[in-house]
């Protein structure tokens, strides 16, 4: 027998404060500070665009994290459909939400940089357009989760969308190679189109935002699991 009062003790989050929740945010915060140092001081000023080019480091890092997050959604959605294990769905919906936040950051920071570099906040360039479609796909994913009330159906429908939606990620990545575009191509067959210091600053920013992503996933998944557990307790008590 387990008393309900014992069962809900774990829901206040105190038992979830493990090493990950203690160490990850601190490491992520330090790496972000190092990333800012590299972006603003270590990397030299770009000759043509000047200081505004420094947006690039965390803009690229945001786009990278968005791709990573949607890859996590893709893998965990497949895992959910294969196993029907609720834990996979918790990770998938958490990663989708965080990926959407980072896509928003990439779109807005890119638009601000574009205004200075191209003279317009937005153009229907292939890279920008496919990224906007990606953002809309995962906004739809989050809306779908709110609309379907049955948990099993919600998880199954959103898993299918999480798998299909990922198709746009390679399209976004390849868009600047497949179509005529004004978006810079950083990595080509000739190598990286930037100096060593700029490359280092981009690498540090990517690592920093990857750690921020990992931190947010740990917190968000923990929240999602406790939410589901609490809903089950409330249903047992007849509070719905």
């Amino acid at each position, binding site marked *: *027998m*387990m*008393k*309900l*009062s014992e*069962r*809900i*003790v*774990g*829901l*206040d*989050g105190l*038992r979830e404060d493990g090493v990950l929740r203690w160490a990850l945010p601190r490491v992520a915060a330090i790496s972000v500070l190092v990333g800012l140092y590299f972006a603003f001081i270590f990397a030299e000023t770009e000759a043509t*665009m*000047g*200081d*505004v080019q*420094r*947006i690039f480091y*965390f*803009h690229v890092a*945001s786009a990278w994290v968005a791709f990573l997050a949607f890859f996590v959604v893709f893998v965990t959605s497949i895992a959910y459909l294969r196993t*029907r*294990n*609720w*834990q996979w769905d*918790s990770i998938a919906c958490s990663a989708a939400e*965080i990926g959407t*936040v980072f896509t*928003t*950051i990439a779109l*807005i*920071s890119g638009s*601000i*940089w574009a*205004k*200075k570099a191209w003279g317009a906040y937005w153009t229907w360039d292939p890279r920008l357009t496919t990224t906007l479609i990606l953002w809309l796909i995962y906004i739809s994913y989050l809306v779908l989760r709110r609309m379907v009330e049955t*948990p*099993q159906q919600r*998880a199954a429908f959103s898993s299918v969308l999480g798998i299909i939606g990922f198709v746009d990620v390679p399209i976004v990545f390849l868009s600047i190679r497949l179509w005529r575009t004004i978006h810079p191509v950083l990595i080509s067959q000739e190598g990286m189109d930037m100096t060593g210091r700029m490359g280092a600053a981009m690498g540090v920013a990517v690592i920093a935002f990857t750690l*921020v992503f990992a931190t*947010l996933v740990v*917190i*968000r998944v923990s*929240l999602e*699991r*406790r*939410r*589901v*557990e*609490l*809903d*089950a*307790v*409330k*249903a*047992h*008590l007849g*509070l*719905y």
Partner: protein
Amino acid sequence: MSGLWFLALGYGVIWLVLFAYVLSLVYREQELRREVKFITQILKDGEVALPTAQRESPPAEGPREAREPSAAT
């Protein structure tokens, strides 16, 4: 407008969006704690026992796996 202004705007937006998301997580966490506190208060009036057989049946609001971690704690 100068490049520095756009640079400040760009980084301002990046941190603002991230900060807003973290705030939303904090809000949801607090909301969850409030609900836990509310249910604890209800249970203070009379302990409700949850038999093992019931815990193993699928929950009304979530699949079985969702209930297993805390059932084991």
